[in-house]
């Protein structure tokens, strides 16, 4: 079964997965489901999504192509892709344990010891052990390499002092992938960093919830005050923290470790905005009869179609000869900025109703568009701001000299 499936085998599997998600997917549990793992705000949302992930894993549709000996399904990745397609098809909820399954898991499978694989992988797939990420710091947002959280070796332990911020699920997580400074005299800022698989529920680690611009919760700031963790938590050796952190980013592309499956973020369906525009009125007439709104919406359609087709074109080397890294590197910038602009644009359709927000009975679509717009900044700021992305594209795709 580990080999590539035949067309017939894949068809059978797809039918089974389709049937399972058709039967088991709950789309409306009676409260608002988060669109991303960064928006899990209430206990109700957390419990629902944790149960959902465990259920999908137990049915064999998550981690289907991860190694069997550590809790995966041991199947060819075509099977997992078919299962993920079924999730999308039935508009299934997101997978909660994003940092575990998307970041820590691939890193441990790629470079971890046998013991680490046995310990961490299975409970991460079943969502029993929730993971979070400790990279950003209050004073070092875009400049990750300058992380200052201190990890000092003391006997068989490291003692941690400092603070991390924007920790999604930080108050629920059992483990954190942590970037900390072990050497303050290193020849450069990167060489002083080390990477840890740190426990969270220990003395000296506290979290404080951050209220987002939407009024909801989802992130915490994590404080480390003489927190002691075992030296076994060090991953990749002292001084290799930066390269470990960069590796976690590479796994997103699925190059070295087979993708775990599912999705951690539900992409906004931009065509819903087109539908909203088509059904909205201004001065009693169709909104899209207004020449300004009409032209803007048309330009956005051009942008949407371009980005969708860019995703196909980036896999066509015959049309990527001049700057092969251009499309992959610009994707985050272009997509997140477009979604921010589109969600903002959607507020302009609403006339006086643009004044209402989530919670008011007069709000259009329960305030979904306002919330989407405000939340869209999480993507234009998080994971490297758009300004950092422009530096990356400028320097790595266009060959411009470094800023700084």
């Amino acid at each position, binding site marked *: 079964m580990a080999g590539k499936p035949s067309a017939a085998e894949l068809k059978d599997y797809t039918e089974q997965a389709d049937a399972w998600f058709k039967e088991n997917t709950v789309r409306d549990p009676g409260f608002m489901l988060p669109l991303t793992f960064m928006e899990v705000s209430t206990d109700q949302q957390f419990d629902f999504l944790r149960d959902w992930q465990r259920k999908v894993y137990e049915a064999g549709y998550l981690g289907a192509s991860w190694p069997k000996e550590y809790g995966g399904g041991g199947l060819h990745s075509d099977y997992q892709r078919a299962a993920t397609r079924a999730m999308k098809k039935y508009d299934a909820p997101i997978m909660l344990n994003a940092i575990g399954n998307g970041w820590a898991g691939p890193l441990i499978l790629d470079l971890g010891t046998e013991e680490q694989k046995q310990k961490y992988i299975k409970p991460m797939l079943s969502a029993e052990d929730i993971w979070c990420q400790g990279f950003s710091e209050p004073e070092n947002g875009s400049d990750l390499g300058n992380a200052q959280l201190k990890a000092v070796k003391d006997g068989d332990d490291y003692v941690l002092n400092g603070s991390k911020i924007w920790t999604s699920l930080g108050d629920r997580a059992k483990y954190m992938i942590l970037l900390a400074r072990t050497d303050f005299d290193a020849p450069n800022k990167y060489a002083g960093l080390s990477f840890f698989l740190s426990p969270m529920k220990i003395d000296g680690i506290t979290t404080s919830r951050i209220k987002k611009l939407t009024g909801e919760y989802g992130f915490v700031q994590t404080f480390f005050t003489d927190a002691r963790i075992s030296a076994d938590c060090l991953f990749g050796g002292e001084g290799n923290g930066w390269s470990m952190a960069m590796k976690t980013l590479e796994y997103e592309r699925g190059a070295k470790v087979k993708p775990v499956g599912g999705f951690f973020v539900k992409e906004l369906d931009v065509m819903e905005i087109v539908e909203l525009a088509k059904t909205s009125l201004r001065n009693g007439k169709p909104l899209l009869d207004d020449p300004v709104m*009409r032209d803007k919406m*048309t330009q956005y*359609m051009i942008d949407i*179609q371009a980005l969708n087709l860019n995703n196909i074109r980036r896999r066509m080397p015959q049309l990527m000869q*001049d700057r092969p890294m251009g499309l992959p590197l610009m994707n985050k910038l272009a997509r997140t900025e477009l979604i921010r602009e589109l969600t903002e644009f959607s507020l302009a359709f609403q006339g006086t109703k643009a004044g209402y927000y989530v919670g008011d009975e007069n709000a259009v679509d329960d305030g979904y568009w306002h919330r989407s717009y405000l939340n869209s900044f999480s993507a234009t700021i998080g994971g490297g701001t758009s300004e950092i992305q422009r530096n990356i*594209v*400028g320097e790595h795709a266009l060959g411009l*000299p470094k800023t*700084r």
Partner: protein
Amino acid sequence: MDNLGTIGTTEEQIELLDVATNFCRDKSPVDKVRGLIDDDLGYDPGIWKEIGELGWLAIAIPEAHDGVGLSMAEVVPIAEQMGRNLMSTPFGSTTLAAQALLAGGSEAQQAQWLPKIAAGTAATLALREENGDWDLSNIDVTGAVSGDTVTLSGKKQLVQWAASVDLIIASVKIDDMVRFALIERSALADGALRRETVIDETTRSYEVTLDGVTVSTDALFDADRTRETLEKIELAAGLIHAAEMTGGAQAVIDYTLEYLKTRKQFGKIIGSYQALKHPTVNNYVEYEKARTHLYSAAHSWGEQGRGEVAVLMAAAQAHSSYATAADRSIQFHGGFGFTHDCDAQLHRRKAIMGGALIGDAAYQRSKLANLLFD
């Protein structure tokens, strides 16, 4: 929306992209482009001959008329590379004339002209008039029929390469209906062509006085084919201009980058300043979107519904990205950008010309909106 197509390539298209990339780069270095600005003809007849010999004018002509039997999809990479290297020849106008003949010409008209075009005879379209309207059906040039002769009166403007072609296909009104007339340039009176001073110095453009010119009624396209011909001309022109402008956008961004990587101010290479780097990245993103739309439009060529949407998107994005990238290129070159010696102005002017000839980005979007939302 089911009128949104996808992207794909053909083997022939990619082979042509390869050949055209090298040919246009080697044969049209910028000093040569600049040399041709002051040349009456405006292009190198030797290169025009080579283009004919390469069979590039025959690509989208059916084999029955001595063509290669491919489509406009395979013309796209050639026009793109020509635009990228500012290579000026009657290639675009000739290709469009062939497309008009294919859409509206009778079997006899096609048999008379398409093999000649396939072999390298230049041709052009005469569509624009004093009213300055991009709407191809809003015309005032008339044809009066008497027996089997049509006598034309009026002037056509912005007729590209008219002095170099054997055939001009003109839109005229006969009995208040738009028709197309095949006019041999040799039938024009002395002095019928006035060379226009146009914003793009690398092309040649003429006002053509048709007063008193007569053609046989056999030289008219069938009245039933007018609509199809107008649509085909708009589509083909949109695609070719999108290709040229997309290639041009790439070139002007590369040209800007070259400067940003070498020019120093305040002790630093200026490309390290985010005030220059970030807008350049934005322009590059817009260019890549244009190229994606271009090859999507090529791929969707001939698909009912999707083809029109894809071409309009490609033309709108090509024009806006070319114009913006060239505009910023002038600015980012500082004082040098204000001189005629800086190549940024060649591109900025060419982008204006492209918009003038087929309708600018906003015009393309207004047509697109009708297809998307109505």
